[in-house]
């Protein structure tokens, strides 16, 4: 399959649009807070869609429809778990984190927040969290680039290296220029594109199948088991899939959107927009894959993950197909840019400013931020040049690792005054180690997704070690009281 001219034109317009947004954001970026947090001026719509689009990678348009296409309704559980997790994150973490990061000496990154929250002068907390972010997000970014370039190689016969460099240059350009605002505004446009694509495609497929009843009948003719949400599922398996939702509380590239919101009172609006977007997008992905079973009943696809892209090409004219293609690319790019910027902020704020040049000017810091965006992106591109590289396998630890190491620490730090710095450090180490070790063992309870034991053990460790250590000093407790007071104003 080669790219038709209308598809190519649509696609180029999309890429140019992203660059224009980057340039517009460049003009509004004066200091490091602007560059890594947009100067806390995101409106609720942009914050919500940006959080959603950064969260949902190519998995939303490739992986999830592919899983539904290959196995049927029993793949829905992961979507259910993610939805519940995202909701709880908006409900219990978002507003508190927005308020506390401002009370805690205007923290602009997650490591910055943790250090300020516990008045940790040793910088241990900041360093551990910044290293983890830097390490995993560089691999994550690289793995996203591999996914994007592979997609273009397989779908359009484009050279892998060319696709990799074109995608990387566009992402680097707008992130380099406009930082957080560029990333969030492009995420917003990308989120809208993904949303429209995930509404259009399933409706078109069900119509092409001859309506909903016919779709279900044809799926049943292929394999009746694919209609059953419990097919081949044990309670253990369902819990394991739903546990993916626990990951949300600890993803730095998602929670930083909460910190960037203009006013904490905008949170209910942002939550409503974010959850509506997410649920409709997930339904779109689910029904695309499901209806795809009927559509391709006669000639099944060789690769299930191409179900969305194949349907886009077959059911729509090339101009619309170009937009749908841009939507897939949007899903991939919106995750890469966010992770790239979080990694850059860890290097700039948590290493350069905290350790090397505490008195650096804002202008210097912004340019260091821009430099580290290029540096990290280049490392990611170099790693992505070999898509079979084993280091990219580290990505499989990232969602669970962040969720188990940071999730309980962030939640407890927002709710529990008695929590201590040592509790936070011990919890992060235990959460991360549990995820890594659990993954090495197979069979029985070790087949459970490692985030669940990691999350529980991290939370328990935080509580036990905090209670065993000296209570926080008065200044920390007073700050917690000030935070609660601001929260309830």
């Amino acid at each position, binding site marked *: 399959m080669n790219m038709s001219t209308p598809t190519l034109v649509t696609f180029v317009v999309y890429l140019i649009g992203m660059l224009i947004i980057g340039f517009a954001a460049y003009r509004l970026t004066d200091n490091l807070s602007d560059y890594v947090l947009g100067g806390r001026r995101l409106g609720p719509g942009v914050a919500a869609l940006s959080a959603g689009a950064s969260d949902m990678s190519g998995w939303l348009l490739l992986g999830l429809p592919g899983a539904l296409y290959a196995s049927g*309704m029993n793949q*829905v*559980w992961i*979507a*259910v778990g993610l*939805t*519940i997790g*995202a*909701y709880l994150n*908006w*409900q219990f973490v978002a507003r508190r984190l927005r308020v506390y990061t401002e009370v805690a000496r205007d923290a602009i990154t997650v490591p910055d927040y943790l250090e300020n929250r516990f008045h940790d002068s040793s910088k241990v907390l900041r360093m551990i969290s910044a290293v983890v972010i830097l390490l995993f997000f560089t691999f994550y970014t690289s793995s996203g680039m591999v996914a994007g370039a592979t997609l273009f190689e397989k779908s359009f016969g484009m050279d892998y290296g060319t696709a990799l460099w074109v995608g990387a240059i566009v992402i680097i350009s707008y992130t380099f220029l406009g930082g957080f605002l560029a990333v969030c505004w492009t995420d917003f446009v990308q989120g809208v594109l993904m949303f429209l694509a995930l509404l259009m495609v399933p409706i078109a497929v069900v119509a092409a199948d001859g309506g909903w*009843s016919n779709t*279900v*009948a044809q*799926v*049943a*003719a292929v394999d*009746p088991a694919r*209609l*059953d*949400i*419990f097919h081949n599922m044990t309670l253990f398996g369902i819990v394991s899939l739903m546990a993916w939702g626990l990951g949300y509380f600890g993803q730095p590239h998602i929670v930083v959107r909460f910190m960037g919101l203009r006013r904490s*009172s905008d949170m*209910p*609006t942002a*939550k*409503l927009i974010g*959850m*509506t977007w997410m*649920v409709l997008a*997930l*339904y779109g992905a*689910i029904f695309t894959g499901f209806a795809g079973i009927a559509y391709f009943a006669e000639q099944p696809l060789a690769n299930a993950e191409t179900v969305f892209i194949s349907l886009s090409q077959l059911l729509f004219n090339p101009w619309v197909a170009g937009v749908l293609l841009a939507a897939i690319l949007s899903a991939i790019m919106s995750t890469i840019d966010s992770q790239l910027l979080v990694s850059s902020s860890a290097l700039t704020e948590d290493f350069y400013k905290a350790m090397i040049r505490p008195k650096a000017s804002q202008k210097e810091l912004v340019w260091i931020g821009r430099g580290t965006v290029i540096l990290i992106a280049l490392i990611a591109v170099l790693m992505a040049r070999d898509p079979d590289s084993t280091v990219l396998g580290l990505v499989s630890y990232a969602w669970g690792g962040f969720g188990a190491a940071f999730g309980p620490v962030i939640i407890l730090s927002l709710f529990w005054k008695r929590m201590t710095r040592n509790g936070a450090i011990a919890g992060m180490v235990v959460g991360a180690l549990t995820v890594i070790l659990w993954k090495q063992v197979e069979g029985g309870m070790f087949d459970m997704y490692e985030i669940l034991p990691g999350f529980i053990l991290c939370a328990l460790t935080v509580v036990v070690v905090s209670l065993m250590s000296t209570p926080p000093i008065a200044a920390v407790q007073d700050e917690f009281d000030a935070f609660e007071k601001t929260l309830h104003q």
Partner: protein
Amino acid sequence: MEHALSFATWFWLIVPMSAVVVLSLVTYLMGK
């Protein structure tokens, strides 16, 4: 209809994911 999604499938497909949107709407309206 001979083949249809079972009640349990519809239930788990619709209820949890819709519930979060309804709950978000309630919080939004209460804040108005």
